[in-house]
């Protein structure tokens, strides 16, 4: 396998664009469902787990330089337990991508083109993603870098354009529903952040791991900042009661922009979420293919890309019959499940690696 190196910032940019964009599209309703008008408090509190996630990823990446999650989990826990954990992580990535691709397709079919079969969008994005992933990590990183330069100004613009409809009195009364709902909101935001753990599959290819912790934690803080606009904007415009019942509140926010003759800017949202979904799908697909290749000790990961992509499309339909089912899963199960796999397990991995001082680089012991 040709070793391609990407820079730290490129890697983190991949993480940011994949988490924020799908988060904005699908998870804002979940966050609002739990925390209501206090979502912004949840978001502020979520910086703590966000920093923890960033720290865990970068710490593991620095401690096991040049090794991916699949490799170092075997080093830390031994061959079999490590492999089991790696399979759990890969399963998590796989499930994550099926949810995202389904959401992406459902977004198109319910909001833009109801006649077009959902499979078309899934196929289209996978053709691109497979092509990008087969071309290597560097291609992914650079494409995403180019996208993100457009995505962030568009997001800021969307936030500014909706300013006139916002009524910040909608956040009153503050904390009327108690800490429970706020903490559940924090949990659901954390769950969204957790999928950035996929970075541990690509941080091994970063050219220099110096100051990686600082950079990653910064990226997580930036990511939290990028959630402020959508979370507060939706509540400020629609009010808590209305915002709870929407599938794509951020999209509806954009759709209703009316500034003079500037109307129906939903195409901005479509652009934003299509590019973001592409970033996430391709990143996760890359991680999966590389992970599977490393699990079976096969040098060339590219042979796995297409079969995995096909499998993802199929499983994305098996997830749930209807979109409401997906939403319910994301609301009721996802916060706990994703936090468990994306934050708790890596933390355990981190702690175990701290206790096991002399980890042999080639083969670990079964314990």
């Amino acid at each position, binding site marked *: 396998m040709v070793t391609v190196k990407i820079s730290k910032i490129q890697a983190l940019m991949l993480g940011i664009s994949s988490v924020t964009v799908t988060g904005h599209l699908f998870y804002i309703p979940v966050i609002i469902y739990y925390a209501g008008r206090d979502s912004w408090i949840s978001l502020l509190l979520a910086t703590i787990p966000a920093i923890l996630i960033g720290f865990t990823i970068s710490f593991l990446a620095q401690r096991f330089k040049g090794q991916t999650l699949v490799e170092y989990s075997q080093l830390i826990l031994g061959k079999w337990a490590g492999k089991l954990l790696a399979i759990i992580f890969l399963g998590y990535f796989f499930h994550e991508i099926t949810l995202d691709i389904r959401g992406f397709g459902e977004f198109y079919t319910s909001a*833009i*083109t*109801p006649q077009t079969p959902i499979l078309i969008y899934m196929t*289209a994005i996978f053709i691109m993603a497979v092509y990008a992933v087969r071309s290597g990590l560097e291609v992914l990183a650079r494409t995403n870098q180019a996208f993100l330069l457009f995505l962030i100004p568009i997001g800021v613009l969307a936030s500014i354009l909706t300013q006139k409809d916002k009524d910040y009195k909608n956040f009153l*009364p503050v904390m009327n529903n108690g800490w429970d709902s706020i903490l559940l909101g924090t949990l659901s935001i954390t769950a969204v952040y957790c999928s950035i753990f996929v970075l541990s599959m690509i941080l091994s290819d970063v050219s220099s791991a110096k100051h990686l912790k600082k950079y990653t934690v910064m990226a997580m803080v930036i990511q939290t900042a990028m959630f402020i606009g959508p979370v507060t904007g939706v509540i400020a415009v629609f009010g808590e*009661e209305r915002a709870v019942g929407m599938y794509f509140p951020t999209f509806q926010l954009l759709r*209703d922009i009316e500034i003079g003759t500037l109307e129906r800017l939903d195409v901005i949202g479509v652009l934003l979420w299509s590019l973001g979904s592409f970033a996430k799908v391709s990143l996760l697909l890359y991680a999966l293919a590389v992970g599977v290749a490393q699990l079976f000790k096969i040098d060339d990961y590219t042979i796995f890309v297409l079969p995995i992509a096909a499998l993802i499309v199929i499983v994305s339909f098996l997830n749930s019959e209807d979109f409401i089912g997906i939403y319910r899963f994301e609301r009721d199960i996802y916060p706990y499940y994703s936090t468990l796999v994306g934050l708790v397990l890596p933390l355990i991995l981190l702690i175990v690696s701290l206790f096991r001082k002399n980890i042999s680089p080639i083969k670990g012991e079964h314990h």
Partner: protein
Amino acid sequence: MLRFSLILICIMLLSGCWDKKELNEVAVIVGVGIDNEPDGAYKVTAQVIKPTPGGGQQKSSGSEIPTWSLSAKGDTIMEAINNLNKISPRQLYWAHLQIIIFSEATAREGVAPLLSWFERDKDSRAGSYVVVTRGSAESLLNKKVELGNISSKSMVDLLDRAKLRQITASQLKLRVLSTQLITPGIDPVLDVIDPKKIRGKYETYQLTGISVFKDDKMVGFIKDPSSVGTEIAFGQFKNSIIKGVCPKSKKGYFIFQITDFRNKVTPKVHQGDIQIHMNITMEGNLSDQTCPVDLIDSQNLKDIEQQLSANIKKYVQTEFDQAKEWQADIFGIGRELKRYHPKFWDHVGKSKDYLSHVSFRYQFNVNIRRSGLIMEPTTVRQKEMGEK
């Protein structure tokens, strides 16, 4: 080979999608009216812009109306629209919908069941105005108006430019309506548009005050000028005018034209009594007067300020009392209570009885900035010359 097949797939996918709509295959709907039928069904009337034949560069011949409206019945809005599609020569296209009109009878029955489709449909716009009309919505849409070919467009223009025309309109849009319906402690207020007879013939439209809703059911109309209370309460009274009686002479009137209006509403609760404090800052010009008095005189200015504040108090109180009679919380007092006194709201929010404990406290800050292009009215000068 891979590259070739990729290109082939891309070409196949890029050639178009299932949902394409060609402009010459759709009927663009600008306004929709909803009436109810005696048998409980709804009648939906859609106003469509007629495509101009032959490229569209022709001058309109005058007698021909450039719109066409078609009606169909159904038990739900979607069914009626489906029936519309059965009779329409072109596919109906909702993305340019600008106004939704409810007839009085429909509004009295409740509008919430009618909004579902408009909110769910991907094409319809949450920025459409929602208005109520006395009589039927169908006939309102089919009235021919002077100075404006498309009747929905003229109505939208009436609402859109209300500020420029210095008239007050609540300008409620679908998004705000659905938010207000779902938010406890506030009842919506919709504009009322009626056809207006000029010289015995219906030729134009008229904004005739507001219709008050309790939850989603209309309960009554409030006519101008006491219908401005909601605008005052929500601080949207800018660019309107207030009439007052001239100080001293007590005969003529003056007109105060508001150029800036802000209202900071704070609810206070005192032993079960709800006090709504309105801190009103108002700036404006004296634009007209019929009395021969120098209104800019400092003593007179004080009188004028008093009159203005008295009028505002009167508008707010009259409208509130009327709505209270109907058990409608049109100023969103409940919403404010929920925001600032959530515990108290939990206690009283079950019914609308809290409205009878509401009283208003005002604090005015009136600034009269200008008096147009002249300092004193012409009448004063003439009188002084005569005395000499």
